[in-house]
């Protein structure tokens, strides 16, 4: 003890004794921390600092909490003031009383960054409340006696807090945390994955909750911007800007399209969408005016200078086209201070170039440096009467680098502050390389072309799923795989149709009646089949009162064509293999007969129709089996697929309906009808809450309704009343006597479309 205190200087002894701490590592850092604290904190602040540090040292959690606290606290105070200490200590006490004291160290560690993001005490308290809720909800107790297991997600959340807070508002953070707690509360490993931002889900929800302008939301606007203002067109491909903290990706373009960050926050008074437009304007200007030049003979500095100048040139040309761009460029372009860097000890090439670039852009720049002024002048003189060329920029750039060269240019310490112009692309298209590289091995190895996986079926499509618990969609939750239904013997279906020949004959009569349908009245005819009384009386009144009567007092009729597109969606889940009550046939066989008859009937009517089946095996594997498409005829191929119908797995109805809807939506018909033939309620083995998939199906029906698709359910479950109305409202029929299905289904269709 004596040896340790000996290292503490005299003037700090009094604080050291107040701290009353025996950890040797604490003694090592104490003098430095204390001096900093004395410089930054008030008298009361210092007292509180010592007191709480002492508390942390005596918590029985080792020296880590006290060490972090001593080191980080002064900085937190600098950001937020001393008054936040009680809130933070109250939170730490709560953690230490729960099994979560392991999370104290990550919490303290994240504090300075958190403080920098949150600024005010109110926001910090909100943040602590979110963390507290997370802690309470994920700390599990066994047998309900007392809390035993620490929250798996809490420390991870603190570790991720800096990333999270840069991208989310507190409301967004709360939603993100809620989502993790709700879905992973009973699965500690996945909870850790979620809160450490490892799982796809976690990233997807983060993306959804982000602040700023998302590229996906504005894709159409930006495509229009390119097409309308620049007559250019390309794919806009987002890259994630959220996870690469060290090396931020830069916009660029290549053969596949223009790569832009997935989100732009408003910055420097420029809205996110305008930042996208600035980036696009810059890239399009390159595409329009830049000719690639050969890079091999230039040094890296020369190349950098050429890039800066060429960027300035294309922007100059773009601003000639649209002068309003200048406001945006000016706001986004950094204005490096002239004397910001230390010429002796750091490389200032970037700084000089950024100043030159600013001087070219901004006529009111404050720079006095003669060379900067001279070269800006030279640039403008060149551009005054022409468009210039990339080669002109090469000449100016090389001469600029030569003239301004400093001994410090080769230093590793580069001055970066205010030199990154973030709306500009990485200029990769500007260079031609004659040799790919200098390394010897570069010549030996022939480039390998990855063979790539063979495409089997279509790639999965992802659909949202509605979660009624928090009234929001789970993003990209369900994967739907679409494939052709395996084929069987078409003759089986013909045999089924023959079996129902009597029924078919009756149906045919109805169909014949149905064909010429939809009489539409045409009014205001001078000559027509009937007198239109309303108009005739009006004309008579006109005539009596001396005004010019309308002679078009007749009406006639015309037959309007049917314009209905139909999608028949079959539930092919395991339960269809059961025998129907009071029948020798399985439900599947009966469905098969019914759909065959329906198919035959619709074909007779000539309405475009498609048939598909679906079943699911968890959300990762929803199968959508294509039986008949709109462009296919009702022929042996289709009948073959129908004959091979098999049932297995479960019923995830919402995703299948959404997928079917995206085909039906593309049909040009006036009326769109989706018939869903099912024998039970939506369910899947990975969904414990039976209500969830019912709610999702209901939501899917609402979505379809918005797309102008009328969905109608034919349910074979006699106990379906409990849920089917919840999903489909009044758009359903329950068929109790399943053996009547083959007859009922076509009849139903006919009456629906009459």
């Amino acid at each position, binding site marked *: 003890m004596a040896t340790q205190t000996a290292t503490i200087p005299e003037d700090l002894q009094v604080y050291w004794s107040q701290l009353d701490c025996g950890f040797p590592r604490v003694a090592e850092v104490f003098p430095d921390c204390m001096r900093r604290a004395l410089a930054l904190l008030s008298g009361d602040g210092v007292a509180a600092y010592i007191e709480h540090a002492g508390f942390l040292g005596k918590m029985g959690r080792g020296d880590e909490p006290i060490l972090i606290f001593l080191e980080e606290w002064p900085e937190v105070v600098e950001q937020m003031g001393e008054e936040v200490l009680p809130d933070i200590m109250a939170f730490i006490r709560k953690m230490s009383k729960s099994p979560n004291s392991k999370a104290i160290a990550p919490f303290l560690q994240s504090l300075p960054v958190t403080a920098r993001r949150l600024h005010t005490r109110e926001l910090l308290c909100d943040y602590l409340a979110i963390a507290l809720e997370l802690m309470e909800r994920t700390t599990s107790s066994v047998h309900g006696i007392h809390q035993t297991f620490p929250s798996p997600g809490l420390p991870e959340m603190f570790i991720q807090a800096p990333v999270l807070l840069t991208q989310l508002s507190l409301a967004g953070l709360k939603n993100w945390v809620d989502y993790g707690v709700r879905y992973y509360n009973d699965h500690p490993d996945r909870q850790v994955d979620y809160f450490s931002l490892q799982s796809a889900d976690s990233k997807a929800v983060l993306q959804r909750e982000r602040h700023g302008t998302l590229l996906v939301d504005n894709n*159409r606007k930006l*495509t*229009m911007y390119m097409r*309308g203002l620049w007559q250019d067109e390309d794919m806009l491909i987002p890259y994630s800007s959220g996870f690469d903290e060290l090396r931020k990706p830069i916009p660029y373009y290549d053969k596949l399209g223009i790569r832009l960050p997935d989100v732009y926050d408003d910055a420097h008074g420029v809205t996110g*969408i305008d930042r996208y*437009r600035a980036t696009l304007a810059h890239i399009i200007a390159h595409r329009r005016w830049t000719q690639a030049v050969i890079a091999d003979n230039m040094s890296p500095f020369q190349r950098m200078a050429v890039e800066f100048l060429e960027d300035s040139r294309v922007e100059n040309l773009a601003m000639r086209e*649209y*002068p309003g761009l200048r406001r945006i460029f000016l706001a986004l372009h950094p204005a490096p201070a002239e004397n910001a860097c230390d010429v002796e000890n750091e490389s200032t090439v970037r700084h000089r170039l950024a100043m030159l670039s600013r001087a070219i852009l901004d006529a009111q720049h404050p720079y006095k440096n003669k060379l900067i002024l001279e070269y800006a002048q030279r640039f403008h003189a060149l551009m005054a009467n022409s468009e210039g060329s990339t080669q002109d920029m090469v000449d100016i750039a090389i001469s600029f680098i030569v003239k301004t060269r400093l001994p410090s240019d080769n230093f590793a310490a580069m001055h970066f502050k205010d030199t990154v112009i973030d709306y500009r692309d990485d200029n990769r298209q500007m260079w031609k390389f004659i040799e790919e590289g200098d390394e010897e091995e570069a010549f030996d190895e022939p480039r390998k072309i990855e063979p790539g996986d063979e495409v089997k079926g279509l790639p999965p499509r992802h659909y949202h799923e509605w979660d009624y618990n928090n009234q929001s969609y789970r993003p990209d939750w369900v994967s739907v795989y679409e494939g052709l239904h395996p084929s069987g013997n078409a003759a089986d279906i013909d045999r089924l149709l023959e079996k129902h020949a009597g029924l078919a004959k009756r149906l045919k009569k109805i169909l014949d009646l149905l064909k010429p349908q939809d009489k539409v009245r045409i009014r205001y005819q001078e000559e027509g089949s009937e007198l239109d009384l309303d108009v005739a009386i009006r004309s008579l009144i006109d*005539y009596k009162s001396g005004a010019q009567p309308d002679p078009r007092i007749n009406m006639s009729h015309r037959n309007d064509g049917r314009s209905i597109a139909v999608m028949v969606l079959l539930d092919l889940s395991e339960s269809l293999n059961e025998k129907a009550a009071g029948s020798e046939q399985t439900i599947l066989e009966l469905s098969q007969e019914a759909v065959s008859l329906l198919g035959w009937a619709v074909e007779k009517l000539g309405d475009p129709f498609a048939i598909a089946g679906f079943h699911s095996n968890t959300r990762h594997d929803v199968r959508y089996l294509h039986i008949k498409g709109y462009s296919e005829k009702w022929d042996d191929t289709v009948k073959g697929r129908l004959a091979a119908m098999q049932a297995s797995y479960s019923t995830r109805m919402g995703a299948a309906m959404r997928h079917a809807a995206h085909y039906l939506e593309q049909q040009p018909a006036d009326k769109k009808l989706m018939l869903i033939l099912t024998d039970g309620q939506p369910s899947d083995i990975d969904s414990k809450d039976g209500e969830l998939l019912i709610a999702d199906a209901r939501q899917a029906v609402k979505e379809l309704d918005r797309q102008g698709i009328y969905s109608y359910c034919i349910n074979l479950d006699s106990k379906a009343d409990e849920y089917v109305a919840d999903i489909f409202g009044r758009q359903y029929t329950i068929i109790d006597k399943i053996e009547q299905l083959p007859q009922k289904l076509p009849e139903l269709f006919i009456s629906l479309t009459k």
Partner: protein
Amino acid sequence: MDNKEQYKVHKEPFYQAQGDEITLYEAAYRARLPVMVKGPTGCGKSRFIEYMAWKLNKPLITVACNEDMTASDLVGRYLLDANGTRWLDGPLTIAARIGAICYLDEIVEARQDTTVVIHPLTDHRRTLPLDKKGELIEAHPDFQMVISYNPGYQSLMKDLKQSTKQRFTAFEFDYPDAKIEAEILSKEAGIELGLSSQLVKIGQAARNLKGHGLDEGISTRLLVYAATLIKGGVTPKAACRMAMVRPITDDADIRDTLDHAIDATFA
């Protein structure tokens, strides 16, 4: 003849030729060939016909067609009056009698059974039978038939029949080149050429979006409106929004893009 006078165009309408359409029209008129003018809305079709009527010093009778229009709306009908009935000539009949240029604007809007009444007037016969009245009118030597239509926005159902199309010589109009269009704006509204080229630039941004959410680009007519507003003291940005963007679209994305085009053009 008083009747004829009222249909004349007395003051020279401003028309900026885009090519040799004026000479070609005069040639067509000399032979009294029927003329069809096609082109997007607001590109100057009606203005051109008006100008030609003025130039040739002939009366011009314009009929705006609509889908409720019947053949009798064109040729005329019997009306009841105190003494029984009285025949009233329709605009087409009047034109054929007095030797006017009869201009049927947006002809495809009229139903197809209506458009066929113009057939006998548009071939070598140059006659108009009034079957209800039992009269056959020989067209006046000065009479000429002109129709216009916009091939862009009408539906498939509304196309001219081949038998109608093949009775006409045709001019295809489009929005003028940027330079000419700017001159038109300057002359029509009396604004500077620099300002009018900026307006044209915004107009072209919108025309590039045609088919991608816009059915028609911003017409020359709307550009003239904007220019007129600016001349009247409205700020250019506000005038453009009011006259050029708000009328043509309800789509928020397009509106934003065009608003940005305005901001980017007027620095």
